[in-house]
């Protein structure tokens, strides 16, 4: 929490004025019982109607002043708290954009999102509460005690017992309540899981005639939940009755002590009423205070989670060029020099000893099962991750010595999962090159076999894509992401299993067109289908992060049993067929 306080600094004025006004309001509230005492002691005792009128008028004035004060306080604290969360969200968003992939992988998308939304929201609520209550509640509780001491030191001694006793009860019940409600939440989560699972698998459940068994399981989970709810409810139901009893017994005590003082002539009746009123005021504020401390503890946890993101290492180091990196004469050569990659220290290597090179304009096909390291390999070219050993070189230069943005602007990446942003098709394509005109965009679309369907869409390039591309089919999305990469006319084009949603015919057309692109990029194709890569100049067969086969299609059929196996599985024993 402390580290996030700096986001309040643009709102220093508000953050000070808010609590101050709140305190003023509380101050006026504390004066009211004294006025009542005055009315009883002076006004009623002397039968002085004007005096009573005066005091009541003062009461009203205090009320108005208190209202103004608390409205100002609410205004300032809302402004400060919301302003603070605005700053946090801005920095979070900016930071997430700069995180290295290793970091975003470590956090995971849903974690990052919930930190930027729910956690920031919690912090905002807590700060707002702090600004409003952090002076008011303690001020009223202790103010009431101080005022009572002013009225009658002897009677006010009751406060010294009451405040700790109430605190123990309130905090005790809340503290025990938290783990209990966490248990309830856990049980509820299980019931939710059961329900969701059952509905998602309705076909299977019925296919196996397991309806009755499911109901039995659900009823059991549900019973457990109810049991926990009742148990925790029974416990928290103690709060009100217990505090009520303590407070009222204290009132009796303070009146008794006050009465004794009156008997000896140290006090007057009105003062006893004032003591009674002060005692009544503290309960509400103590309950608020306890709630507020719980919210603060929660918010501190949220703040910690936010900080973790804000302090995550940014981007990647740029290394100085090594002496050994002499530019080579072959242009645009991509080279992997004995590359190994582990995503975190001590983790199993995702790639080991990858070594190959490809001249400019040629095609590399990469094939292997899931988890064999295909995507990891191509992610090293735009330096999404840093190698843990060896080096990836472009034109003979280690990618770690190049400017990240300049490097990436030369590479077109088409991700495995087609990622489009809400906005028009044109806006999405312009990511590739902000200066491209419509002709250039359509040239890219046509090369990606997407020109025809885009022309047919209402609005063409101005067709609006919904969030996540929901209003496009999987194949359309993939072709658009390919076009986006082509708009940039990249020197290196990476297709990371990007044609999985295309049928064979479209896939074939796509490969034909990409092979004849005028700017002839060096091409990396990752695929599970041998058909997609069989024409490549170099095919790498990966298994468990290692290259187990390297060569052309024909060579690999001869030399690499795994490649042959994959190929046979997909096409049957081809030689026997002839249509």
């Amino acid at each position, binding site marked *: 929490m402390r580290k996030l306080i700096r986001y309040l600094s643009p709102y220093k004025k508000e953050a000070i004025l808010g609590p101050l006004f709140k305190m003023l309001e509380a101050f006026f509230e504390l004066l009211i019982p004294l006025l009542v005492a005055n009315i009883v002691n002076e006004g009623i005792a002397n039968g002085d109607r004007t005096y009573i009128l005066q005091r009541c008028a003062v009461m009203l004035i205090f009320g108005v002043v208190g209202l103004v004060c608390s409205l100002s306080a609410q*205004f300032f604290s809302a402004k400060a708290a919301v302003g603070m969360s605005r700053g946090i969200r801005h920095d979070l968003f900016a930071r997430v*954009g700069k995180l290295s992939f290793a970091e975003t992988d470590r956090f995971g998308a849903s974690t990052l999102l919930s930190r930027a939304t729910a956690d920031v929201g919690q912090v905002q609520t807590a700060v707002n509460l702090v600004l409003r209550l952090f002076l008011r509640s303690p001020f009223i509780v202790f103010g009431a005690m101080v005022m009572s001491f002013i009225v009658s030191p002897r009677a006010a001694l009751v406060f010294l017992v009451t405040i700790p006793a109430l605190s123990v009860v309130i905090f005790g019940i809340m503290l025990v309540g938290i783990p209990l409600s966490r248990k309830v939440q856990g049980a509820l989560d299980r019931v939710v899981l059961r329900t969701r699972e059952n509905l998602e698998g309705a076909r299977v459940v019925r296919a196996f005639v397991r309806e009755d068994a499911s109901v039995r399981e659900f009823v059991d989970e549900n019973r457990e939940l109810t049991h926990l709810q*009742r148990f925790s409810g029974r416990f928290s139901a103690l709060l009100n009755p217990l505090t009520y009893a303590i407070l009222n017994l204290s009132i009796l005590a303070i009146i008794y002590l006050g009465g004794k003082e009156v008997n000896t002539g140290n006090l007057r009746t009105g003062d006893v009423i004032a003591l009674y009123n002060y005692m009544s005021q503290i309960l509400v504020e103590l309950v608020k205070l306890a709630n507020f401390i719980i919210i603060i503890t929660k918010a501190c946890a949220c703040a910690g989670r936010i900080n973790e993101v804000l302090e995550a290492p940014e981007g990647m180091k740029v290394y100085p060029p090594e002496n050994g990196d002499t530019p080579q004469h072959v242009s645009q050569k991509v080279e992997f020099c004995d590359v190994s990659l582990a995503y975190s220290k001590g983790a199993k290597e995702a790639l080991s000893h990858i070594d190959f090179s490809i001249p400019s304009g040629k095609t590399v096909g990469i094939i292997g099962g899931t988890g064999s390291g295909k995507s990891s390999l191509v992610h090293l070219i735009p330096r999404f991750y840093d190698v843990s050993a060896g080096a990836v070189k472009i034109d003979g230069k280690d990618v770690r010595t190049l400017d990240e943005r300049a490097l990436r602007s030369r590479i077109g990446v088409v991700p495995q999962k087609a990622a489009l942003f809400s906005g028009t098709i044109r806006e999405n394509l312009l990511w590739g090159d902000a200066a491209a005109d419509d002709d250039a965009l359509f040239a890219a679309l046509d090369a990606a076999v997407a020109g025809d369907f885009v022309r047919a869409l209402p609005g063409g390039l101005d067709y609006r894509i919904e969030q996540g591309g929901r209003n496009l089919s999987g194949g359309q999305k993939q072709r658009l*992401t390919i076009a986006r990469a082509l708009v940039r006319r990249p020197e290196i084009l990476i297709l990371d299993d990007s044609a999985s949603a295309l049928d064979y015919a479209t896939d074939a057309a796509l490969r034909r067109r990409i092979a004849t692109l005028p700017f002839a990029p060096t091409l990396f194709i990752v695929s599970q289908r041998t058909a997609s890569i069989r024409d490549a100049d170099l095919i790498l067969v990966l298994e468990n992060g290692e290259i187990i086969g390297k060569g052309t299609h024909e060579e690999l059929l001869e030399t690499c049993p795994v490649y042959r196996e994959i190929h046979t599985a997909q096409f049957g024993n081809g030689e026997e067929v002839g249509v």
Partner: protein
Amino acid sequence: MKTRQSQKAPRGTGRRVLSYLRGYRFYLFASLFLALVTVLCTLAIPVLIGRVIDCIVGKGNVDFPRIFRLFEMCVACIGTAALSQWLMNIANNRMSFGVLRNLRNDAFRHLQKVPLSYLDSRKIGDVVSRVIADADQLSDGLLLGFTQFFTGILTILGTLIFMLTLHPAITLVVVLVTPLSLVVASFIARRTYKMFRLQSEIRGKETALMEEAITQHKTVVAFSEEDALLARFDDVNDQLTKASQRAIFFSSTVNPSTRFVNGLVYAGVAFFGALSVIAGGSGALSVGELSCFLAYATQYTKPFNEISGVIAELQGALAGAARIFEVIDSPAETPDAQDAAVLRAPRGEVVFENLSFSYTPERPLIDNMNIRVRAGEHIAIVGPTGCGKTTLINLLMRFYDPTGGRILIDGKDLRSVTRESLRHTIGMVLQDTWLTSGTVAENIAFGKPDATREEIVAAATAAHAHAFILRLPKGYDTPLGEGDALSRGEKQLLCIARLFLELPPVLILDEATSSIDTRTEMQIQKAFSALMAGRTSFVVAHRLSTVRESDLILVMRDGKLVEQGKHEELLARKGFYAELYNSQLQRAEKKEAR
């Protein structure tokens, strides 16, 4: 306040809720009685304290014996109030959580009987939220309603009566001024409702933007679009800040305003009360009564504020109740006919006779389809993705009933046999694999929970799943949570193992598409072959060999059955199948042959 938000609950919803309370009649009456006791005691205490104060007149004039007698009564009242409040809370707990449990059980039980069309036409998340969140809202509403609504109303009535007996005229002051705080509160609430809606609209936009930027971070970075996105984000962020500041400030004016109105009441009572004490005579207040009156004046306004909150809560509860009753009241599947036969030792002969089907009358899908599948024959279903291959599965498993014609299994109409025996006859492995949260062994034994470990291992071995299961951290006892480490292919192997435990004579299989890794795919293929040997099978086919070797090919397109026949026949027909085959498959084969 919240009325505009929560759609109105249909009539009779309240009565339905009451019917769920019927089993808790004892607690209901106990709760009402205890509420009355609590309120009476709570209200009696200020009166008693007022009398105590009247015993404290001045120096040497304090009536201690009487004070002690009054204290005894006070302590009795305090104890009774505290105890009865606690018991009331417990009764309310039992009631509302019990109703909640019964409602959820009823809803879940009913969901096992709804036709699949009900689930298919709804978002799962929506149904879940009805069973969970809406039911919760109802029970929260009940709990709050009982703990605060009754005590609130009783407190208001009780206070009024006590005040009237003390001094009718001053009571009038309280009764006239207090409603002001309600007016102010509802005024502010109405105004801020729009602001909050605006805030959540903008927040939705901002969250959507963040979600895109975060989930597609790699793309953003690959295209160096971070700064452009940040600018867009800042724009929305500023809008949100403005909207939030307004909404939060205006809504936070409620408390100070009602506090101010309470202050007015307080001052009024102090003024008129003090004058009445001075005036003296019959019907005038004593000093103690004045202090009692002041205590009442603050107490009187509180339930009003609470009740207006409770009313909104109750409306929400009724709306929640209506939504969960909608689930419970949705029509159930037509039950099995009373004379439904049990399929015994089925051979697996399947006949589609003049079969017609459509999900909606406007879009007929299957029209007068006739096929005869002898026991042990293999049928391939082919077509582009999304062509509606699941429709046939839906009909075979009787997840849906045909709109015309009939399906016969071993010569019996599907509708004339029990669902249970039908589903024991047909085994199904879908590509969208579904596993429960349980261990690997529990999942394999899904259809036969009493299977021994030996049987389970045997089934897993037959399904080529044994090897990878042994590699899991706890082998067969590895729990499968959400988002676990199994690949899609491995999950499908588990689903196949499920079938090996009790091999049914008819199979529905869904072949993997290319996204499963090749080696697992080969194992799945082998497992499928083992399953299919000697059994009638319907295979949603993606691979050439399966298609060519089947006894009958059904070609689907846009949800419709467009062609049927053997491979050669269909090719010769030069229809959609030939087109599909030539564009997708032949190319690969030609190259192969070269």
